[in-house]
């Protein structure tokens, strides 16, 4: 309103004269709102570029504009530093960029002020296979927080809810399967240059014959016969359970050929 008054007369713009005193509360709330608005512009620009705009993106913007503005303004009451206005701006901005920022910040501040012990947050382990913070955020937005959940989700749902290329997503899902089923063998498998689940499967399979798989008898992967035997047994049970039947159909050409495609 202050700026509106300054520019109210068309074609006769008055020089900008700052009032001698502006209420601190107005400044902090204004700063957090402008932070939220700037964050919203950055968010839409980034998502527009990567074709990653969903209806919920605009809902997030609407929520962040309101929640960020209010929370930023109130939070500055407990931050008695000379940079209060900047902190309010940053709180609004970061809430728009990632709406989970605000609950996390409020939890921390509440625990700090009251000394209350809040239940610990369960950290995501998706970073074990995905080195892309935007992709992890997209998965968090559809309530996927762990490698275990990621590897059990229908591939089509993942494809439609992420902006990364399908090949890249397949690579992540393939690695996620390996991390989920062989968490203690990851290092040994890496030393044998095996990074993906389907890669390991190829090393263990002798032949794919129309609807069946013949496994190798003597496999040498890690150099430890007992460990290799365990890996083979686990792999056989995983494939036999058919829990990841469709996913393996997407990830492996040979598996798809054996189980899904019509015989030539």
């Amino acid at each position: 309103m202050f700026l509106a008054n300054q520019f109210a007369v068309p074609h006769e713009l008055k020089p900008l004269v700052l009032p001698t005193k502006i209420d601190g509360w107005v400044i902090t709330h204004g700063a957090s709102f402008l932070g939220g608005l700037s964050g919203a512009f950055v968010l839409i620009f980034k998502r527009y570029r990567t074709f990653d705009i969903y209806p919920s993106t605009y809902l997030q913007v609407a929520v962040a504009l309101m929640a960020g503005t209010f929370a930023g303004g109130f939070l500055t009451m407990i931050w008695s530093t000379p940079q209060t206005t900047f902190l309010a701006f940053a709180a609004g901005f970061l809430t728009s960029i990632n709406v989970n920022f605000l609950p996390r910040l409020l939890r921390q501040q509440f625990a700090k002020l009251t000394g209350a012990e809040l239940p610990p947050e369960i950290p995501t382990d998706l970073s074990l296979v995905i080195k892309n913070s935007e992709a992890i955020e997209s998965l968090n937005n559809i309530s996927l927080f762990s490698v275990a959940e990621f590897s059990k989700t229908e591939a089509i749902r993942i494809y439609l809810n992420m902006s990364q290329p399908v090949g890249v997503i397949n690579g992540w899902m393939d690695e996620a399967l390996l991390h989920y089923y062989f968490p203690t063998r990851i290092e040994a498998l890496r030393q044998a240059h095996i990074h993906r689940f389907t890669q390991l499967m190829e090393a263990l399979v002798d032949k794919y014959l129309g609807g069946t798989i013949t496994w190798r008898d003597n496999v040498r992967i890690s150099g430890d016969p007992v460990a290799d035997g365990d890996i083979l047994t686990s792999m056989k049970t995983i494939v036999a359970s058919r829990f990841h039947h469709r996913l393996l159909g997407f990830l492996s050409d040979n598996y798809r050929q054996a189980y899904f495609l019509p015989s030539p």
Partner: protein
Amino acid sequence: MEALLTRGTAIVFDWIEQLTEQIKDFYYKSFVAYLMFGACVLAVIGLQSDVPIWPLNYYSIVWTLALFFPASAGFYLIFNLRVRLNEILDIAHRNQFHFVYYPGVPEKQSERRFTSFLRQRFAEYFNLIELAGFSLIAGIIAFCLLCS
């Protein structure tokens, strides 16, 4: 000869069906986007006396900032919405993913069913009315807060 004729007819019908679906889809998303643009223009005209966008003044900036949300959503609806779906359909076609969902079915039928399934899922995740509505709400909130 008869079998060839039946097959040919099926291919033509298939092609017409796909084309009709694409045209319908194109007009529907464009219609929603233009409806939203229309609502924005009406709002600007309706509020011209109280919150004038022209001649240039403070409220011109407010309008520009607030209209950014519905405008970006409208352009996204018209030009970019189907990019992701087309990308998935293209890869699915090349890798014959349709057989993973519909094995043991003739290829054309399997592909058509998979395409239809994917379109249905896509429409659920990217609801046009929701996208338009939420972008308008975001714009209205920004407008109200900038005016207050």
